[in-house]
């Protein structure tokens, strides 16, 4: 399945008139971005752990990509995860439909911005970063 299918679902859920749907939409927005970027990294031979640690690992790779757009993607991935955690775990705080819309647009922006990144430079920088952090 294409990870961007989750974005389609996220957009659909926003239209329903319930906070539970909006919260779920935020979760799908995050996972659309996470899975999309993970797959794109895989195509560049950058493997991401299949365990929960993969979430932090993916953001770290972008954060240390040495490319301005890559660093911003890393930060936004981090943001989306934090927002998803609030949506899934902080139920006492009201979550608005407008917030769900914002997260969907943010996720869409991230998936649209990755294709324009210099893939060769990104791959080289991530390999170098991993080389520095990999235990011999």
């Amino acid at each position: 399945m294409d990870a961007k299918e989750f974005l389609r679902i996220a957009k659909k859920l926003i239209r329903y008139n319930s906070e539970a749907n909006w919260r779920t939409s935020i979760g799908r927005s995050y996972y659309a971005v996470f899975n999309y970027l993970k797959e794109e990294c895989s195509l560049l031979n950058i493997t991401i752990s299949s365990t929960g640690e993969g979430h932090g690992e993916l953001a770290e790779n972008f954060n240390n990509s040495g490319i301005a757009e890559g660093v911003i993607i890393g930060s936004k991935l981090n943001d989306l995860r934090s927002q998803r955690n609030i949506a899934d775990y902080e139920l006492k705080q009201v979550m608005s439909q407008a917030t769900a819309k914002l997260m969907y647009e943010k996720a869409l922006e991230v998936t649209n911005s990755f294709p324009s990144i210099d893939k060769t430079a990104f791959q080289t920088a991530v390999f170098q970063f991993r080389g520095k952090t990999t235990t011999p």
Partner: protein
Amino acid sequence: MLTCEEILTTLVRPTADESTETRTYKAFFDLHRSRTESYWESRFEIIGAMGERVENLIGEEEVCASSPSTPSVTIVSESKNVDIVAYEFCRAHKLLASLDIMYNQIVNDFTNLKGLQADYFVDPELKKREGVVFRLLIKGNPKRILKEENIFYSHIANSIPLEHRKFFSLVYSVR
């Protein structure tokens, strides 16, 4: 989360022998680590319940053991809403300068910002992932907010060290 002012009004118990002229306030804090006198003196001003500036509360503060009934405190420091645990986390990880830059840049770059709070967080599923989350209460349409967010990230690109970026994230409550 109670503000410092709320704590001072609800928990303050001026003793019977304190005169109105020399009234002092005893604030109860839910602290996780010990605090030094110089720490409080150098970093915070605590606004008294009557709106008076109560300086140098050291020596008059009472530290309570952490308990579920003891509220966390939002300390108003230089007009910033920063959770005390968030502040301590940044201090321990040498992130205070970046915390300041992030906070100020958010205020500067996001129009229609109705509220801002910096809280410590631990990812409920990834215990190694911890840091400070900036909660923005904001009005506006998504495209405009995202445009301002991009401006914000371009502004901090050269002012926040890369190794600090992972500790900070932005979350929104849009009205």
